[in-house]
């Protein structure tokens, strides 16, 4: 098995990153269920806990004390990220545990982050699902932006929608900032525009692009616009209890289109399930969720759409 994996090293896995800004909205649960369904569909899948400040994905998978974690790789105790992967009860699903008790990984250096991204890309799998941490730190955003599928999870609460939007907004500005590269005037403009009440009165991405054109020319403006449009997050509304809750994703779509010139796709909703809370409390793996659960069925539909 190990030999087979080593031989298949450049498989170029597709990365799905699951973020959303706010804590407690079920990012990890959604990540697990998406990874579960990918594996059940026969895709060789790795679920990676990139909540570097508060990793607990392993707990939701029923693992009390992970034998090896991402920290072992970063601190070079283990040379290969492949070796950090641990098998799960589900065929074709492996897990990379994070390490919540190790402060060194909470704020990785740029080099550590690049190393993690580089090695994730080399993992022997068809799909890698990244469970990102809460908040909109550069680390979280950078992991989000490298993914082929950029998934935003939110709940119908206004605070969650606001945080999800802030997450998308910060991701857009982070991408712009990186693209601006070594152009100090453009960098300064983007940094200034990130403040919603900036004195330049740049309020929307459209304003920003116009100002960028003035500074760096039309070609640069068009390049930035193309890159922003390519972000296209996939929005999933979690913990839905009625039909109007499902509209939360639409709110993100409309505000993003108006202010950020990006076009998030609404991939549907996952029903609220008391059983999941109980399983978390009792440390029963989420993957053991009964198949009659609506959340289970919803995530199957969403996985099919995302593929």
């Amino acid at each position, binding site marked *: 098995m190990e030999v087979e994996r080593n031989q298949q090293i450049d498989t170029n896995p597709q990365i799905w990153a699951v973020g959303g800004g706010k804590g407690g909205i079920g990012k990890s649960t959604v990540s697990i269920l998406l990874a579960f369904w990918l594996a059940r569909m026969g895709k060789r899948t790795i679920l990676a806990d990139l909540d570097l400040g508060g990793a607990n994905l392993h707990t939701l998978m029923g693992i009390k004390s992970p034998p090896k974690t991402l920290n072992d790789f970063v601190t070079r105790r283990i040379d290969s990220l492949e070796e950090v992967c641990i098998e799960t009860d589900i065929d074709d699903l492996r897990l990379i545990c994070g390490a919540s008790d190790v402060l060194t990984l909470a704020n990785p250096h740029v080099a550590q982050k690049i190393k993690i991204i580089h090695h994730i890309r080399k993992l022997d799998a068809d799909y890698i699902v990244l469970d990102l941490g809460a908040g909109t730190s550069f680390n979280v955003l950078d992991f989000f932006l490298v993914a082929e599928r950029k998934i935003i999870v939110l709940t119908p609460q*206004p605070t969650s929608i606001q945080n999800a939007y802030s997450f998308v907004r910060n991701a857009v500005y982070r991408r712009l900032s990186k693209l601006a590269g070594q152009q100090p005037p453009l960098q300064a403009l983007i940094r200034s525009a990130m403040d919603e009440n900036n004195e330049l009165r740049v309020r929307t991405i459209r304003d920003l692009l116009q100002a960028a054109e003035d500074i760096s020319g039309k070609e640069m403006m068009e390049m930035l616009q193309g890159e922003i449009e390519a972000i296209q997050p996939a929005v999933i509304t979690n913990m839905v209890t009625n039909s*109007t809750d499902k509209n939360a994703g639409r*709110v993100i779509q*409309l505000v993003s289109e108006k202010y950020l010139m990006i076009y998030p796709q609404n991939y549907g909703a996952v029903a609220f399930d008391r059983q999941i809370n109980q399983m978390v409390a009792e440390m029963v793996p989420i993957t053991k969720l009964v198949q009659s659960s609506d959340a289970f069925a919803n995530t199957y539909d969403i996985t099919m759409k995302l593929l």
Partner: protein
Amino acid sequence: MFDDLTEKRDDIVSTILDGSRTINTTEEFEAILQTDPENPSLLRAYGDFLVEKAMFDEAALEYKKSTVLFLKSGSIVPAILSNILYWTVIKVSERECRSIYRTLHDIKSEEVPAFNFFARMTYAELIAVIGELEQEHLSSGQVLREPNDPEYDIFFIVSGLLRETVNYHSTTGELKQFTATLAENMFFGDVYPLEEENLSPSRVESITDVQLLRFSKRDIISVCRKYPNIRLLLMELCQTRRGSESRQYSQLVRATTRYQLQTKVTLEIFSDDKNEIPLILKCITDNVSEGGACINIGEKYWIGSATDLVGRKAKMMISVPKASLSFEVTGNIVWKKEVSHDEVTSILVGIQFAEISEEDFKFLKKYCYVGDGEQDMIYSLWESYVKK
């Protein structure tokens, strides 16, 4: 000493131009012209003076000189006026007309949107447009536009200054104002899209005496029928103003329409015959502002010519249960158009609101103004679409 003389000369010129100094003889005017022979405004004033004396050929010469000098300084709108006067006082040969057109084309002044508008026309298009422009004079302190006044014209400023004021709500909900000064070569009047009822977003009043060139929407539509390129040029022209507006009044996020949010409305269309029962339609709108709405009445509800709808009185009722909003407003159907999508043709009608109670107007404002920031918009949308 030199500065004193220059100042004195400028004073004389300005008093001639503003009409406060009267000159009685051509000799006197020519003597003043000697002090500033390349002043296109003064040359035009001299042309006006000569017209009063019925010296049309001489006047034409001054107007022509004025036109060329204005053009060379990139001052397109005053040049157009001088040119109109030139062509008015004498019959000008086509060769002469084309010569001026070539001068216009040879000059680059990309910074002035009005210049681009005129300079990118073909000769025939320019002649057609110039033929429709009308002069307007305003004295200082006159109000030309109030917010929500219908926009029937686009105005190009020949001379003088105007103040444009936009009211907007700040992020804290406080009512604030943004003021801009409009000057020579600028324009105002949101007439595009031509098929829609456009309402003024601002108040416009003259600060000084003002000379304008007015291009009425009716004439624009007529000219565009023959010269479709003018529609494109007009669209670009209006976009430049919107672009600068969006930057200048960026706090005034255009939340005045509930962008792309479809809302069900009930529309009652009344007949001229009071005994006839009004037509009641269940429709969709995704564009409502304080002044009017664009409503999709579908196709299945309407039999007969949709043209018959224009001019009819209509009542629109909106109910948004999730946001506890319900109001009705009466107005007139001012335009209609047919749109096709996926082989289905729907009829859109534009309603200009006329009668609304104070209470309903409050609801309408609440409905239209989603907010002036992203977070406000999120909260408002959540309230309308998600809140239980």
